[in-house]
């Protein structure tokens, strides 16, 4: 039997595949090899294999483990806060009204601003003496709560977490909002007839039907949380005393010192951690999805 020639010519795939292969696939494959070399800025064209040396040095470096710990702390905190706040906000703005559409517009707005610019704005907001946050706290008499946000090791990381949540909670809000719109209204009516209270309705009707939205927001927030760079680079650059050092800032630091082989090893470990963690979360959430 002669195979029918498809009218969907494969060569239409070529431009995308070509660009993608050269600048995504090749670098990712090469990355595995480069991590085992001593490539650096001083002997730029003389790349030699040095076995597991980079990885041994990396795993022996205390700052690396601090960076891993901080990265996961940042990712987990932002995932939880962005999803909880995003969900509550979506509940609040779910019905159509002028006020709600104003809220949706305003809360989504910061997503348009580059994170590095948001950093500068928050450096000013968090300024210990003149920033509006402490001015406000002092103004309402809560002097004890006015801290040196980005300067104090104890608060710097959480201050950055808060900034990230401020910027991105609106995205989750809108994903949940459209998830809620997609649930057929008969389900709510049925629950009402059965005498369900508002929170029972949310818990037993809405939540189970929205697992798919949660899968997406979880995956998005985990990946962006683990990849965090500019939020830290633009505010504290890893300080004070490495208390906000994350994997990407650690990677950038070794890159700017010119240790390319070593940085490639960092990048490789970084990638493996992200892939592993997202695969685990994705596996857990997939099992909970319901068809309707």
């Amino acid at each position, binding site marked *: 039997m002669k195979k029918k020639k498809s009218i969907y010519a494969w060569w239409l795939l070529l431009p995308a595949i070509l660009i993608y292969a050269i600048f995504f696939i090749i*670098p990712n494959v090469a990355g595995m090899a480069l991590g085992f070399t001593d490539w650096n800025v001083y002997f730029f064209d003389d790349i030699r294999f040095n076995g597991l040396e980079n990885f041994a040095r990396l795993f022996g470096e205390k700052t690396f483990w601090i960076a891993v710990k901080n990265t996961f702390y940042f990712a987990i905190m932002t995932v939880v806060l962005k999803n909880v706040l995003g969900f509550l906000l979506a509940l609040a703005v779910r019905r159509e009204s002028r006020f709600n559409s104003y809220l949706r517009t305003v809360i989504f707005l910061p997503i348009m601003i580059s994170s590095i610019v948001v950093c500068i704005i928050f450096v000013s907001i968090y300024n210990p003496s003149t920033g509006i946050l402490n001015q406000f706290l002092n103004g309402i008499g809560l002097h004890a709560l006015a801290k040196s946000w980005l300067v104090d090791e104890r608060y710097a990381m959480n201050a950055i977490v808060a900034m990230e949540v401020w910027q991105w909670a609106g995205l989750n809000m809108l994903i949940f909002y459209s998830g809620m719109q997609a649930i057929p209204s008969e389900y709510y009516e049925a629950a009402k007839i059965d005498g369900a209270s508002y929170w029972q309705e949310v818990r037993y009707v809405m939540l189970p039907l929205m697992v798919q939205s949660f899968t997406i927001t979880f995956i998005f927030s985990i990946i962006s949380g683990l990849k965090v760079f500019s939020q830290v680079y633009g505010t504290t650059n890893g300080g004070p005393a490495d208390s906000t050092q994350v994997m990407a800032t650690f990677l950038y630091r070794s890159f700017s010192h010119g240790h390319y082989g070593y940085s490639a090893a960092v990048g490789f470990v970084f990638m493996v951690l992200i892939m592993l963690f997202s695969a685990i979360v994705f596996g857990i959430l997939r099992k909970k999805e319901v068809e309707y």
Partner: protein
Amino acid sequence: MAGRRKFIIARVLLFIVSLVYIIPVWMVLINSFKVTAEANMMGISLPSDMVFHFENYREVIRTGGIIRGFINGIIESLLSVILIIIAASAAGFVIARRNSRLSNAVFMLFIMGLIVPVAYIPTYLVLDRLHLLDTYTGIILIFTTYGLPQSVFLYVQFAKTIPRELDEAAILDGCSTMQLFTRVIFPLLRPTTATVFVLSFVGAWNDVMIPMFFVNGNKWALPLTVYNFYGGYMKSWNLVFADIMLTIAPLIVVYLLAQRQIVSGMTAGAVKG
């Protein structure tokens, strides 16, 4: 009665939430018009002498490399978006139509790109060997590469909703594959093209790490130029704030004009359609 009170409390709370979003932007705006000493106090009241110092903006435009950053951003974002639209729409169409193991594998490879972080160091090596380090071509191709996964995904989703009968009718009418795509399918993909345009443009414009790794400061788009400017003018917040306003104003205008597209694009695929 109790319901009414609850309603009012909820309204007040939500209004406060919206202030948490508006006040920072207001603070930037109002301080950008003040004299340095007063702007450094970072208050949110109007300028004490009620004089709006528009010359702060003139000063920033003169010294901040605003025009350069703006042109860089337009060149890099626009050209990469055009490449993304051409490559991703064609690929998305074929992936949506062919149901072979190969096309599924290609699709999975693109999906991987959504998860895997940029392999900065090896990409640096590739760009170096191709003599594309610190060039517009280089950074445009990298933006294109990292814009592709999301765009291919959106095009595949949308192309699946276009009936296949249309393809067959076009071929029977004597269209070649190329004509089928350019004359029939691509125009129908327009809503997705609009979404991809906005998302990829904003993504490239706002990116931080890619320009930092692969090009020098004279090829950075506005947001990073602002960061640079801030590094040099930490003591003059009025100028820093004016610089920030000039950077975010175009995007806020775009957002208010194309809100529907942006929102539907960013939440696409997250909802069962």
